[in-house]
C-alpha cells in the first residue's frame, strides 16, 4: 500500500450496539475472517461477570472491532486538528493493532493468565535458584544434579499476541501480501520500543479503555457509560512532542471518564460475587495446569506449538469449561477440587464472611500496612478451619487496591521520586492535557483544577474473607457459621472496622 492509495474503511460495515455502524477495510475483514481472530467470539471479555450481570457476556471479538473503530476515529480527529504528519499507512497499522490487541488472550482472559502466572512463577524461581550456588571455592560441594535445560516460563497475553502475529500462518500470509510490518503492529500493543502513537491503543485514555467502559456499561446495565466520549475524542490532539493529549476544555470530561472507570471497576470486576467466582475459577484452572494426565501445558514452547498447529484456535472458554466438567466427573479428582468445579458449573458462589474497605493514600507505607492486614487475616485461617471443620482450601482472603490513574501524583513540584523503567512507561500512559501557550502537555494529575490532582494519589483498599461452603454443610448451618466466624475475626483483629 502507498500514500496515494488510502485504505477504504467502508469495504463492509457491521452494526454494533455501542458505536452504531462500524466501517471496515478489506484488509481488516481478511484479518477478522482468520481462524485465530474468529476464536475471540468464544473468549468472554468479563470472565464470569455474567454470573452476576446476566448480559455481561460479550466477547473479545466485538470489543476488538470497537477498538479498531475508535482507533480510526481518534486518528481522524488528530488529523483534522492539524496532525498532518500522520500517514495513511500509520492509520492502517494502528487500526490493525487495535483490532489485534487482544488476540493473545487466554480462555477466560485474566483468570487463566493469573493461574498460569501462579503456576509457572514459583517453578521458574526454583529453576533459577538451581543455577547458582554459594561461593565457597569448594566445587565438590556443588550438586551433581545438573539444572534442567529449559526454564519453565509462560507468556502474558500481549506476548501471546506477538507470537500469534509471528507464527499464525493465515495472519502471516495476509501481512506478507499487504507488506505489513509485523513487528510494528505487535510493538504497538505490547508497548515495547515505544511506537510513537501507542498511547492511542494503550494508556489511561485510549481506544481500548473507552470501548471497554462503554461496552461494559451497555451490557451490565450500570450507568457508567454516560461519559461524553464523542466530545472527549473530538478534543484529542498531538502536542509538540507528538504525545497524545486533550485540550484543557475536555479536562472535566476526562476526569469524568476516569471516575466512571473507577466506578465500573469497583462495581463489576471488584463485585464481591464476581471476584469470588473468579478466584475459584483461577484455582480450578491452576489444577488443570498441574494435572498428572492430560494437563494443559502453557509453557512458552507449547503455546508457540499450539499457534503453529492450530490448536490455539480451539483453546477458548468452552474448551476450559469442558475440561472443568471432566475434572469434576473424574473420580481421581480430590473432593476439594470437585467442590470448586461444582461452584463454577452450578453457580454456587463462595460467601463473603467479612470485609474491610477504606480510601487512603497510595503510598508505599500504606500499601505495606494493607498487605500486612491481609496477611494477618490469612494467618487466622488454619485455626478457623479447624474450629469449623472446613478445610483450609475452602477459605480465601481477597486483597485488592483500585486507583483512578496508572500512577499517582509523584511528578509534582514538591515530590521527588526515583522512577523505574516501569514507572516511566506508566507516566507515558497517563492522560495528558495540552498547554496551548507552550504546545506541550502535562499529566492530568499535575493540573491544579483537575479532580485527578487530588484523587490520583488515593487508593481504595479492600480486604475480604470468603468461604466456599462444601456441599456437606447444610444451608441452615452456613448462616450460623458466617456469623460466628465474623465475630471470631472481630475479636482477633480489633483495629480494623470489619463489616
Amino acid at each position, binding site marked *: 500500500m502507498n500514500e496515494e492509495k488510502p485504505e477504504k474503511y467502508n469495504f463492509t460495515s457491521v452494526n454494533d450496539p455501542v458505536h452504531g455502524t462500524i466501517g471496515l477495510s478489506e484488509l481488516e475483514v481478511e484479518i477478522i475472517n482468520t481462524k485465530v481472530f474468529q476464536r475471540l467470539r468464544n473468549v468472554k471479555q468479563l470472565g464470569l461477570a455474567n454470573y452476576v450481570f446476566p448480559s455481561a457476556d460479550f466477547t473479545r471479538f466485538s470489543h476488538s472491532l470497537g477498538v479498531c473503530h475508535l482507533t480510526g476515529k481518534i486518528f481522524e480527529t488528530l488529523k483534522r486538528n492539524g496532525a498532518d504528519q500522520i500517514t495513511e499507512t500509520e492509520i492502517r497499522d494502528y487500526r490493525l493493532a487495535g483490532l489485534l490487541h487482544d488476540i493473545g488472550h487466554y480462555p477466560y482472559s485474566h483468570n487463566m493468565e493469573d493461574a498460569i502466572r501462579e503456576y509457572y512463577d514459583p517453578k*521458574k*524461581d526454583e*529453576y*533459577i*535458584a*538451581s*543455577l*547458582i*550456588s*554459594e*561461593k565457597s571455592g569448594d*566445587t565438590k560441594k*556443588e*550438586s551433581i544434579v*545438573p*539444572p534442567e*535445560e*529449559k*526454564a*519453565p*516460563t509462560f*507468556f502474558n497475553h500481549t*506476548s501471546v499476541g*506477538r*507470537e500469534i502475529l*509471528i507464527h499464525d500462518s493465515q495472519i502471516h500470509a495476509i501481512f506478507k501480501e499487504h507488506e505489513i510490518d509485523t*513487528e510494528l503492529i*505487535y*510493538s504497538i500493543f*505490547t508497548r*515495547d*520500543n515505544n511506537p510513537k502513537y501507542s498511547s492511542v491503543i494503550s494508556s489511561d485514555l485510549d481506544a481500548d479503555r473507552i470501548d471497554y467502559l462503554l461496552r461494559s456499561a451497555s451490557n451490565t446495565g450500570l450507568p457508567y457509560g454516560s461519559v461524553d466520549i464523542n466530545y472527549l475524542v473530538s478534543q484529542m490532539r498531538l502536542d509538540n512532542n507528538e504525545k497524545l493529549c486533550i485540550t484543557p476544555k475536555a479536562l472535566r470530561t476526562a476526569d469524568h471518564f476516569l471516575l466512571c472507570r473507577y466506578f465500573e471497576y469497583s462495581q463489576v470486576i471488584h463485585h464481591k460475587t464476581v471476584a469470588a467466582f473468579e478466584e475459584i475459577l483461577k484455582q480450578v484452572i491452576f489444577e488443570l495446569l498441574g494435572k498428572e494426565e492430560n494437563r494443559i501445558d502453557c509453557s*512458552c514452547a507449547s503455546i508457540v506449538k499450539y499457534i503453529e498447529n492450530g490448536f490455539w484456535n480451539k483453546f477458548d472458554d468452552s474448551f476450559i469449561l469442558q475440561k472443568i466438567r471432566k475434572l469434576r466427573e473424574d473420580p481421581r479428582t480430590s473432593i476439594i477440587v470437585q467442590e470448586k468445579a461444582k461452584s463454577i458449573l452450578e453457580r454456587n458462589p463462595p460467601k463473603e464472611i467479612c470485609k474491610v474497605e477504606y480510601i487512603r493514600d497510595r503510598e508505599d507505607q500504606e500499601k505495606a500496612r494493607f498487605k500486612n492486614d491481609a496477611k494477618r487475616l490469612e494467618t487466622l485461617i488454619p485455626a478457623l478451619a479447624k474450629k469449623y471443620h472446613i478445610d483450609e482450601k475452602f477459605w480465601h482472603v481477597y486483597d485488592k487496591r483500585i486507583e483512578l490513574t496508572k500512577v499517582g501524583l509523584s511528578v509534582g513540584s514538591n515530590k521527588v521520586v*526515583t522512577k*523505574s*523503567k*516501569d514507572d516511566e512507561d506508566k507516566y507515558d500512559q497517563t492522560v495528558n492535557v495540552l498547554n496551548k501557550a507552550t504546545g506541550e502537555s502535562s499529566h492530568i494529575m499535575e493540573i491544579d483544577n483537575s479532580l485527578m490532582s487530588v484523587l490520583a494519589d488515593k487508593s481504595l483498599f479492600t480486604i475480604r474473607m470468603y468461604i466456599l461452603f462444601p456441599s456437606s454443610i447444610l444451608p441452615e448451618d452456613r448462616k450460623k457459621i458466617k456469623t460466628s466466624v465474623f465475630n471470631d475475626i472481630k475479636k482477633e483483629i480489633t483495629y480494623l472496622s470489619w463489616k
Partner: protein
Amino acid sequence: MKTKLIALKLFLEELGVPSNIDTVDERKRVQKSIYLGQIAGVDLGYHFGWYLKGPYSPELTKDYYDLDEALTEGDIEYQKKDLKGQLKEKLQSIKSIVTQPSDVLLSQADWLELLASVHYQFSNYDLVTAKANITREKPTLVPYIQRAEEALRNSHLLNN
C-alpha cells in the same frame, strides 16, 4: 537482590560483558549476550521476539533495569554467589565469539546484534528468507553475515 537478578549478573560476568545500560549500544550488548548464552544452553527463561535490532526480550529489559537499580543502591549480594560449574563451562565455550574479530569493523554491540540476528533468522526461516530479512533490515551488517554464520557454526550454536 532477587535470585533472577543475581543469575543475570553472574551470567554477564562469566561472559565478560558489563551490566552497564546507559546507552542503546550497552543495552543491545546485554540483550544479545543473554540471547547467545541462552542458545548455548544456559537458559535464564527469557523469550526473545524479533524487533528492530534483532532478537529482543521485553522481560529482560525490565530485569536489567532492576539489576541496574539494585547495583546503584549498593546491593552486592551477587558477590557471594556463583554460577554452577557446568553452566560456566557452557558460557566459557562461547566467550571467544562475544568479542568481534579484529578484521570485523563493527562495534561489539553491532557484532553481537549480527550474531544474534543471524541465529534467530536462520533458526526460524529458510536460508533465502533469513538472508533476505537481514539484508533488508540490517544493511550495514550485511558484509559480515558469512563471518557471523561461521562463528556460530564453529561454536556449535548453529546446526541447520
